[in-house]
């Protein structure tokens, strides 16, 4: 199969997928879980349980708090001990439901068996309802509510459903493992979403550094025999898994600045999301488990793992179970080394989108002293959005909002390619992120003002 990739920029960080050989293990339950009400993009969920209530695993404990929001379910059986703010990984206070674990009893109607269900329900609306009810969100990073994405505004047509199996971040192997261990479930999930979108084409994109995954997924596609699903091998390049980049790689179409994927006929869902959709629709199982990688350059291979975790498990509990934070760790990251977030608080708990505990040594992660920009243009060559980071950096430092907007700082996807590549070690993305926030704020205010003016004119 012809190998393809996105057309602008990109970098080749060291793969470091040391944990690729680690089969998924199920983590034992802790004594207490703390389930965040804000583990998706959009409004936080509203708790529907009270302190003292008994809950079962898979039972709804919080309802979506708006159109863009998602239901949250208990990941364990036990008693609600408190509903109170608690610090998340960045140290911000977020409402959490604390549940003391008692046994492991699941709510009625959830099928926990391994039997593969390939028959897809006929009713599109019913499928969407199930996905919504089960609190499925995108697990590729953005945690955007899946039912919203699968239900594009009237008038827009999905031409291609892209299943993202790129896993372009170094170190992470959780997607790789599920493609190896649960390929059929993923394909059924893809077939379900394909159907919801009106039977468009479906492409499962996987980077060529994961030949076993390509083979496993191709086999599952062939054996299940759903029409119109194909596996596409992609050249390895970061950030292939970025939504816009993946669409460009697969469809050779570029989503316009500020536009949504559906504007070019694309819908992108991650392989883990596809698995969650399968479990929701075919097994009635809400999204309360996911797979994460325990890895890092200072963690010996035999201590690396892929764990199936339940949401609300304290990171410290998981780290402890895996043998403790390694000696040489200088930074603990949730997510990959390019886009992940530094963990400021190990008491924080897993959320639906958790993907890793990554331990990096000082040698791998310490920032070098920044020097002068030598105008080498490497940042611009690396930028997958075709921006000029050296210039945005300068503009951001002086705070020239008009020029920042004109030079498209708002298009930045915070992929980190620029800063990764800069030989002068300039903190390009740090500055660009601040400026991007400010410009997005200005754009939002402007749009709101325009809307208000339009409405005033109507009256």
């Amino acid at each position: 199969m012809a190998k393809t990739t996105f057309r602008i920029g990109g970098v080749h960080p060291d793969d470091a997928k040391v944990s690729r050989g680690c089969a998924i293990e199920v983590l034992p339950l802790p004594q207490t879980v703390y389930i965040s009400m804000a583990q998706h993009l959009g409004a936080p969920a509203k708790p529907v349980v009270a302190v003292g209530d008994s809950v079962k695993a898979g039972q709804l404990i919080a309802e979506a708090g708006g159109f863009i929001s998602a239901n949250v379910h208990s990941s364990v059986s036990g008693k609600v001990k408190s509903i109170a703010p608690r610090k998340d990984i960045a140290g911000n206070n977020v409402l959490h439901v604390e549940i003391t674990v008692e046994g492991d009893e699941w709510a009625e109607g959830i099928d926990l068996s391994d039997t593969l269900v390939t028959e897809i329900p006929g009713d599109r609306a019913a499928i969407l309802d199930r996905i919504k009810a089960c609190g499925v969100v995108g697990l590729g990073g953005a945690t955007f509510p899946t039912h919203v994405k699968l239900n594009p505004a009237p008038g827009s047509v999905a031409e291609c459903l892209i299943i993202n199996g790129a896993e372009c971040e170094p170190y992470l192997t959780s997607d790789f493992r599920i493609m190896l261990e649960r390929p059929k479930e993923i394909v059924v999930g893809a077939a379900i979403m394909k159907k919801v979108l009106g039977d468009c084409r479906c492409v499962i994109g996987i980077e060529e550094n994961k030949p076993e995954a390509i083979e496993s997924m191709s086999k599952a596609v062939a054996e299940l025999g759903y029409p119109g699903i194909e596996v596409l091998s992609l050249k390895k390049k970061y950030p292939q898994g970025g939504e816009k980049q993946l669409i460009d790689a697969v469809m050779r179409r570029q989503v316009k600045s500020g536009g949504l994927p559906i504007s070019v006929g694309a819908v992108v869902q991650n392989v883990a999301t596809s698995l969650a959709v399968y479990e929701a629709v075919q097994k009635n199982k809400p999204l309360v488990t996911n797979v994460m990688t325990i890895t890092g350059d200072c963690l010996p291979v035999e201590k690396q793992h892929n764990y199936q975790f339940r949401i609300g498990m304290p990171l410290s509990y998981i780290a402890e179970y895996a043998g403790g934070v390694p000696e040489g760790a200088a930074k603990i990251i949730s997510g990959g080394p390019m886009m992940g977030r530094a963990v400021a608080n190990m008491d924080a708990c897993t959320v639906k989108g958790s993907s890793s505990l990554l331990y990096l040594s000082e040698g791998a992660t310490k920032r070098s002293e920044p020097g002068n920009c030598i105008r080498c243009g490497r940042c611009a060559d690396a930028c997958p959005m075709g921006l000029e980071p050296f210039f945005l950096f300068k503009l951001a430092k002086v705070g020239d909002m008009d020029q920042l907007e004109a030079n498209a700082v708002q298009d930045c996807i915070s992929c980190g390619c620029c800063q990764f590549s800069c030989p002068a070690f300039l903190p390009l993305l740090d500055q660009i992120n601040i400026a991007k926030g400010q410009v997005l704020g200005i754009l939002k205010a402007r749009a709101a003002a325009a809307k208000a003016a339009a409405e005033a004119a109507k009256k």
Partner: protein
Amino acid sequence: MDKYLVSPNPHVHAAVSSDSLMRDVIIALLPAIVVSVVFYGWSELLVLAVGALSCVLLEYVIARWLMKDLHLFSGSSALVTGLLLSMNLPSTTPWWVVFIGAIVAIGVAKMSFGGLGQNVFNPAITGRVFLLVSFPTYLTHWEIPGGLWGADAVTGATPLGAIKEGLMQGGTVQDIMAANGYSYGQMLFANLGGSAGEISAIALLLGFVYLLVRRVIKPHITLSIWATVFVFAGIMWLINPARFTDPVFNLLTGGMILGSCFMATDYVTSPMSDKGGIIFGVGIGLIAMLIRYFGSYPEGVSFAILIMNAAVPLINRFCHQKKFGRA
């Protein structure tokens, strides 16, 4: 928790730094340096050493005591400037002339603009052009290498200089070439008069390929210079081969290879975008050939690069990378 770092993404960095890039440039220059030292001997080594050491020293002194900010000192970059300056000078250049060149390169062209990354003109070329204008006698006559084969070294003109002179005296290109016994083989493998950076095209090209392979530079600028020189010289040569030297001769002689591979590709003084690089290269090729054919100096690459250096801010204004999802 306090003992762990908390900073935003990205959490890793490519194995590349300004110093590692400069180190690669120095490695790329080594073949040509070795060849020139073998051919010219100690005097060449002295020129190289004086150029390199004085550039590094001057940069340090200026950063530390004049600008009072040691962050502005970049030893590796100053070393590259020093080597390039020396490679543009004949091995017979007195040490104090080399030193003056270094003062102009580092003091005037680089540090007075604010140091690394801030200068508009290529420091090494600025130094060389200053010397060419101020001390023409030292810079236009060369010792022709011969020592290695036991023959005595003789001084004379470079091929470009010889042809310019010959043409002014009414000769034809063919006659002058034949009289001097120039051949392409010599130009490629070092046997003609010139500065260190001019004598061996092969050694320089080896370095150029190294820089490409290591992805230190991109080929756009260099290739567009070559293409322009080839096409322009080709047309003129076809029109009148007695008056105009042929394209291959123009690519292989003088500072063309050194200039196109190592000087025009200097990050700081070349355009940021690929498109800009091509415009820059075409400009250099054209100006260099116009000077060679019609100017009073036999060689024009240095002037061409300086002139195009001045155009870089303008080029950068109009040439941008293609943005994703924007027309």
